[in-house]
């Protein structure tokens, strides 16, 4: 049996253990009590990660709810050059898959640092092809991508978004705040290997999806307007053109086309010129389509009556200038109806002389010249209308037949919509309402209206416009079985110095059926070979009007009586 250890050793051992135990207790107390809050926070910070949850951008829909602009999944592809093992080989492969220049990819892979974008907004299937190759140092970020399923349909109206998904043109820009929604975030407790801890803390602030914008556009009508416009431009050897199809009663725009256009899914080669929605952003001298406002002012104020006769020469000296009709003719006796039907510049000047500056200027303003239509589109032009107090006899003369002022195609369409709507001007609109992510629909604010001329004056103007198509310059717009009311326009363009040149804008604006209008169509062709609106633009109007009859199921209506012809008057 071994001897018992000395007592002092046991005491020493006990003392050491007590001291060690006390030390542990003190340390525990320090960590668990004194530093509790600090260490807990440090621990949480180490484990908790916050991830942004992007809000899904709202769609842009046509009037029937078909998607015109949607958001889908895509990838941003990046490289960490420090992890790339074979820069030359990888550059060749990546360039081939992503359709990039190998030199550019080699340069990117040779940059210093740990992150460089190779290509952003890559289609998902292309990105997955590249991902399958498992190239070292190449990474993929999940991002949303704007996609336009109908391709090159109404691109200038819909607009585009930038690489970060922010609307920079068209309706995408106009309704950015509604479409964008609000991003959310997810905070989760992660394990050491970065995976969420199942029983750990997790908080989610759900993103609020963007609101969808329901437009007034009719997808079929828009397509027909664009294809017919393209054919008309090519047939006439013109530079371009515009079309607007709208409901005169509600202001709903069924189609708004500008040619040339572009594919919003591939904007790499698109110019700023092609991106402009010229129906709204560009103004031009309207020419003879403007004569209807001169007639409206004359009839509404009583300055001229329907059977009043004018002696109209083919040339007229106004101040230092000689104004001419489009063709030489002997002095003719004309009513105001004849003047509109034959599109006589001199006749319009004579009517404007009866009306006077103040009334003529007043009616130009009443019809909406010189200010935005309020359609709700970025960059809308106001056009140019000099105050009538500054007019001299030359300006009054030229304004009467649509030169010396400028308007947008939409302003011009609205003038005719006002007449078709019984003299009440309706604010045109591109958006019917907004649809939330839960499917609830909210109407857009009701369009503003204003009575511009009396209904009986609008009826007289309609009769005159029907006369233009049946027996005047607009014969090419006739449709068997339907009475069309409209007006041709041919206006000279200005060069960059403000001088008139031998280049023309041909236009036709009209509506049908004349007695019960359902649709207004405004067409303009930029620099056609056949300069006259009656030849270059009216056939396009007719083609679109025929389609509108089918698409909108427009029934025929009784014909309106034509205004008196001077030769038929006693």
């Amino acid at each position, binding site marked *: 049996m071994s001897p018992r250890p000395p007592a002092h050793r046991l005491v020493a051992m006990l003392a050491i253990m007590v001291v060690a135990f006390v030390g542990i207790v003190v340390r525990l107390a320090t960590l668990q009590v004194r530093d509790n809050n600090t260490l807990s926070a440090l621990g949480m910070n180490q484990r908790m990660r916050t991830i942004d949850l992007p809000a899904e951008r709202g769609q842009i829909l046509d009037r029937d709810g078909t998607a015109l602009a949607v958001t889908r999944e895509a990838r941003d592809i990046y490289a960490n050059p420090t992890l790339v093992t074979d820069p030359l080989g990888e550059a060749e492969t990546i360039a081939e898959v992503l359709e990039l220049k190998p030199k550019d990819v080699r340069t990117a892979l040779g940059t210093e640092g740990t992150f460089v974008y190779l290509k952003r907004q890559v289609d998902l299937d292309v990105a997955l092809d590249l991902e399958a190759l498992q190239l070292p140092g190449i990474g993929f970020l999940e991002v949303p991508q704007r996609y336009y399923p109908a391709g090159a349909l109404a691109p200038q109206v819909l607009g585009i978004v930038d690489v970060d998904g922010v609307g920079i043109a068209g309706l995408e820009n106009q309704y950015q705040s509604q479409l964008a929604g609000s991003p959310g975030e997810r905070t989760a407790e992660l394990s050491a290997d970065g995976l969420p801890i199942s029983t750990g803390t997790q908080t989610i602030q759900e993103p609020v999806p963007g609101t969808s914008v329901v437009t007034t556009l009719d997808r079929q009508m828009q397509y027909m307007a664009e294809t017919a416009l393209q054919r008309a431009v090519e047939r006439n050897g013109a530079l371009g053109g515009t079309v607007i199809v709208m409901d005169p009663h509600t202001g709903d725009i069924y189609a708004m086309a500008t040619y040339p256009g572009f594919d919003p899914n591939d904007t790499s080669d698109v110019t700023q010129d092609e991106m402009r929605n010229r129906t709204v952003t560009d103004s031009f001298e309207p020419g003879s389509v403007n004569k209807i406002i001169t007639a409206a002012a004359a009839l509404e104020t009583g300055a001229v009556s329907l059977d009043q006769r004018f002696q109209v020469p083919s040339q007229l000296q106004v101040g230092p200038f000689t104004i001419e009709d489009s063709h030489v003719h002997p002095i003719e006796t004309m009513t105001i109806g004849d003047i509109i039907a034959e599109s006589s510049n001199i006749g319009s000047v004579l009517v404007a002389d009866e009306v006077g500056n103040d009334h003529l200027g007043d009616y130009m303003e009443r019809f909406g010249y010189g200010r935005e239509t309020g359609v709700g589109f970025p960059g809308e032009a106001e056009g140019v209308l000099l105050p009538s107090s500054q007019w001299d006899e030359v300006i009054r003369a030229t304004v009467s037949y649509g030169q010396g002022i400028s308007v947008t195609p939409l302003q011009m369409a609205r003038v005719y919509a006002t007449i078709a709507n019984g003299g009440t001007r309706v604010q045109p609109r591109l958006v019917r309402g907004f649809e939330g992510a839960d499917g609830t629909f909210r109407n857009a604010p009701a369009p503003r209206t204003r009575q511009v001329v009396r209904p009986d004056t609008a009826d007289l103007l309609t009769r005159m416009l029907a006369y233009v198509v049946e027996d005047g310059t607009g014969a090419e717009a006739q449709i068997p079985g339907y009475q069309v009311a409209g007006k041709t326009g041919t206006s000279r363009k200005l060069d960059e110095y403000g001088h008139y040149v031998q280049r023309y804008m041909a236009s036709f604006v009209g509506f049908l059926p004349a007695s019960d209008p359902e649709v207004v169509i405004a067409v303009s062709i930029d620099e056609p070979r056949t300069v006259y609106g009656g030849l270059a633009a009216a056939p396009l109007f007719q083609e679109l009007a025929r389609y509108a009859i089918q698409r909108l199921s427009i029934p025929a209506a*009784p014909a309106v009586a034509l205004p008196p012809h001077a030769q038929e008057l006693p």
Partner: protein
Amino acid sequence: MAFWIFTALLMTTLVMTVVALNALVVNATYRLQTAQEQQRALIGDGAALRIEVARLSSPSRIALWAADNGMRMPASDEVIPLRVAGAGGGSA
């Protein structure tokens, strides 16, 4: 001795219960996450299908398909609006 055996059994049972409950929670959480992922995937599939419908029904694609199959748009004078007696007004 019996006390120690009883205590060991009790402790083992308690530990097993806690572990089993924890396992059930983890399993339920896993199934919940899987279901949420499936929901997200289905929503994504639905959105993708809606996009595909919009693409396939686009007028330009249909017009191209029709042209490839020998069809064409009728000329203006080839479309004749018909009127049913009593259904509309007169004509010009």
